């Protein structure tokens, strides 16, 4: 069976070992595997950070992983953030905001019409005043937008773009921020799915080994 030489970020977060059955299956979608990794690098080690600083990228990533309640990814991005954070209180404030922001999604409103019966109300998250002071307006606006995209993407509207522009995000920076939140939404789900499958394969293999011993 094919396998891949080096572990990528998804392997790391999902606990996939080189040479394992799941590693072999991932190798059959090599372009997807390589480009999920290139996506991660394009967002966190870009050729050009443009007008989205590394600290903003890691803070948003840790927040998105955190509000998904995915401990491995949250720990990974919080550790990256802690390494480059210029203010020690930033990480603590962010952890507090993650707890305040957790809820269950997706929810939100559809355009007026027949789908309105499926409208579902839920938390409209705003950063707490203390958090706002530490994070500053620009990062606070990014976290509020990230929460909108994660939990109630169908509520997205031009006003959300206006709020980001008003907080100092350029059009290009908004594209990067949107990709960041959307990519993380993909990454944590790929990791969760593969980790669950991997655990189930482990039990299958154990059962098969036991059955094999029984036959001896």
């Amino acid at each position, binding site marked *: 069976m094919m396998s891949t030489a080096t572990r990528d970020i998804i392997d790391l977060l999902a606990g996939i070992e080189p040479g394992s059955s799941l590693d072999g299956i991932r190798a059959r979608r090599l372009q997807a595997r390589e480009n999920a990794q290139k996506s991660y690098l394009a967002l966190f080690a870009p050729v050009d950070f443009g007008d989205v600083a590394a600290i903003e990228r890691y803070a948003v990533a840790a927040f998105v992983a955190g509000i998904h309640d995915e401990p491995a990814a949250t720990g990974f991005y919080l550790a990256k953030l802690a390494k480059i954070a210029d203010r020690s209180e930033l990480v603590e404030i962010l952890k507090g905001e993650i707890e305040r922001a957790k809820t269950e999604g997706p929810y939100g409103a559809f355009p007026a019409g027949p789908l309105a019966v499926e409208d579902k109300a839920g938390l409209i998250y705003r950063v707490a005043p203390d958090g706002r002071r530490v994070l500053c307006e620009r990062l606070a606006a990014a976290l509020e937008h990230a929460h909108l995209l994660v939990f109630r993407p169908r509520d997205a509207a031009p006003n959300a773009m206006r709020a980001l522009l008003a907080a100092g995000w350029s059009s290009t920076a908004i594209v990067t921020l949107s990709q960041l939140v959307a990519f993380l*939404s993909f990454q944590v789900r790929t990791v969760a799915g593969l980790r669950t*499958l991997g655990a189930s394969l482990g039990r299958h293999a154990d059962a098969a080994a036991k059955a094999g011993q029984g036959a001896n």
Partner: protein
Amino acid sequence: MSDAIVVQDSTNQPVAFTQDELGWLPWLEPLVEAELTERHWAGLVDRSRAKSDYFRLLARDPEILEARTKTDKDIFYNTADGLPRAERELAAAATSRYNGCIYCASVHARFATVHSKRRDDVQRLLDEGVGADLGERWNAVVSASVALASTPIAFGERHIEELRRVGLDDAEIVDVINSAAFFNWANRLMLSLGEPTTLVGK
């Protein structure tokens, strides 16, 4: 001027899920085709994508666009082994239906119909939602996709057992995970950077 909202006329905004072809209108200014550099063209991957407002808007960050596009293509178009294309498209359509992306759902519901020839079942997914009874194999794919799209993620061992029970092997289950996970990326871009519009005359 480029850092301002593009105000769109929402008169023709679709109000229901459909398999009809829709348009998409950006809320931020896409790059101008004549001003694209080699870096932007690389990000677009296919030169024909320069005709799309959506891709010229995403081309503002070309490296992540390029990697996103190549991830997308392999997950959906690499049909060597693994899950039939129709069921990858079903996972994409179900995810989009659940998250509420009318535009994404229209595209991938059409693809699911083309590859499965089960137009009525696909339409029931759109009309009734992700609880529609589409037969046990499709139900298992839809249910796994919905659990994966939920926040916190609700995908668990029982979804894997159900996919196995209806005949999927491990590689096919990975295709379900990849297809559904990817649309949690795509839905959030399409929903938040612009809006769908009904194509007049269609």
